């Protein structure tokens, strides 16, 4: 099986502060890989490396390689195209100060799509997928920033889906959403898995257990353990720290 993402010996420093200390692992196509671990363990940094938005952080240094479909992402000339192949959902909901419609149509438009009917189709499909369509279909021209926090987060997910990514990265997406909506989105993710690979950074270990095929445990910039979710959540993961974290002994 060809790996979707291949990470080898990835090191990241912010100035003198290390954030990732040489991690290596693979992401399989169409899997949900959850990444768990306490704060400051490098999870968000990892996602920023994958879509190369870490380049906007002035003093960040990256070593090692990340390959997407076997191609080193550093060698990809069209970095904007790369970012569109990867959907990114950040922890705090960010509705852009545009209408709901324009929020979702933003990425297709920056990629050059102008046809109204195609944009309409994308907006409806993505809002459906993000479980937001029914709540907003009659007011697509209101501002995205006027939605509630949970709705804005689903808007963010719809926006991330609008450029039809091959990999969807979710960084603690459920922080601002109520449990019922979270469950709806989790169902959506299981459906989306057929079309794309999903990287799920989460602080809710139970969410990882519910959704993920495999789970990786990060601690202080190191990859402690990566295995199938069943093994990670069993009584005998390979590393004691994994067991302690999942069972709430620390973190």
């Amino acid at each position, binding site marked *: 099986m060809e790996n979707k993402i291949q990470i080898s010996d990835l090191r990241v420093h912010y100035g003198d502060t290390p954030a990732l200390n040489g991690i290596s692992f693979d992401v399989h196509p169409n899997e949900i890989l959850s990444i768990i671990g306490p704060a400051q363990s490098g999870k968000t940094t990892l996602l920023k490396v994958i*879509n190369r*938005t870490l380049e*906007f952080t*002035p003093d960040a240094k990256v070593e090692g390689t990340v390959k997407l479909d076997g191609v080193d992402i550093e060698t990809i000339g069209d970095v*904007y*195209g*790369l*970012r*569109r192949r990867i959907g*990114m959902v*950040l922890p*705090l909901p*960010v*509705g*852009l*100060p*545009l209408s709901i419609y324009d929020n979702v149509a*933003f*990425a297709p438009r*920056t*990629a050059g799509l102008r046809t109204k009917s195609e944009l309409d189709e994308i907006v409806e499909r993505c809002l459906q997928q993000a479980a937001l369509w029914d709540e907003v279909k009659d007011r697509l021209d209101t*501002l995205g*920033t006027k939605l509630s926090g949970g709705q804005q987060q689903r808007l*963010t997910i719809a*926006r*991330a889906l*609008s*450029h039809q990514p091959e990999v969807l990265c979710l960084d603690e997406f459920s922080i601002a959403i109520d449990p019922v909506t979270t469950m709806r989105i989790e169902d959506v993710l299981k459906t989306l898995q057929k079309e794309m690979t999903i990287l799920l950074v989460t602080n809710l270990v139970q969410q990882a257990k519910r959704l993920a095929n495999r789970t990786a445990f990060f601690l202080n910039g190191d990859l402690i353990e990566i295995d199938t979710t069943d093994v990670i959540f069993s009584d005998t993961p390979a590393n004691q720290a994994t067991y302690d974290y999942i069972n709430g002994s620390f973190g």
Partner: protein
Amino acid sequence: MDTDIQVSPGAMFTETALDRQKRRIEIVVRIFLLVVTSLMIIPLLLIIGYLLYKALPVLSFEFLFTNPKDNMRAGGIWAPFLGTIYLVVVSLLVSAPIGVFAAVYLNEYARENWFTRITNLAVVNLAGVPSIVHALFGVGAFVLFARLGESILAASLTLAIMTLPVIIASTTEALKAVPMSFREACWNLGATRWQTIRRIVIPNSISGILTGVILQVSRAAGETAPIMFTGAVFYKAIAEGDLFAYNIMEQCMALSLHLFTISTQVPDVTEGIPYATAIMLVGSVLLINAVSIALRVYLRTRKKW
């Protein structure tokens, strides 16, 4: 040890000595702050009131549209008024785009390195340079070196140099007010920096940017030093009522310099004229500030987050 405190019902609402003292201090502080604030308004009202009282006999549309006459002892202010408009408009046409684009570069593109640091240092220091120094720079750079001669263009460029740093600073503030998370969201969607700036950053900071630029109108209109060696003359007659009476390669009159001249250099000026000139200068500046505030309020009600 028994720590129960016996409190009779209602006792906690009776005013104690401490409560009375706190209340008195509160009143004193409030009155003091009100008085200090009023001190700020009173001089302005007095100045404008006095000017208006003295100026009323001569203030009229005719005063605005007539050239100074009779060795500036009589007549109106058309030539200096139009000159000031020329100076302000030309200087802002230069400094506003340069200042705004420079601020966009510094805030959105520039990395933290020696070039950015030097530029920021230059901006801060330029803003602190006295206007007479700008004037001498203008003489050297524009009048003599660039061979523009003493002209509206040279004077406007000097004013532009003076207003530029402040426009850069105010634009930077406006850009910084747009949350970083908006930019990150756009970058994650594959937008370039410029697409992000054009679609999200500028539309959401335009009110602050415009306010900063407009406030420089009053500064450019009020300054005398930068223009008196670079393009403003004591007297020049132009076609009355013709908005295109000046050529920007020629010299012009200006309200600020004209006010100085008729108040100190010309004997026997008709009583109300200096006051009326001052009122026109202050009035135009206040009008422009009012427009700027109205614009800001209007754009802020449309603020989107």
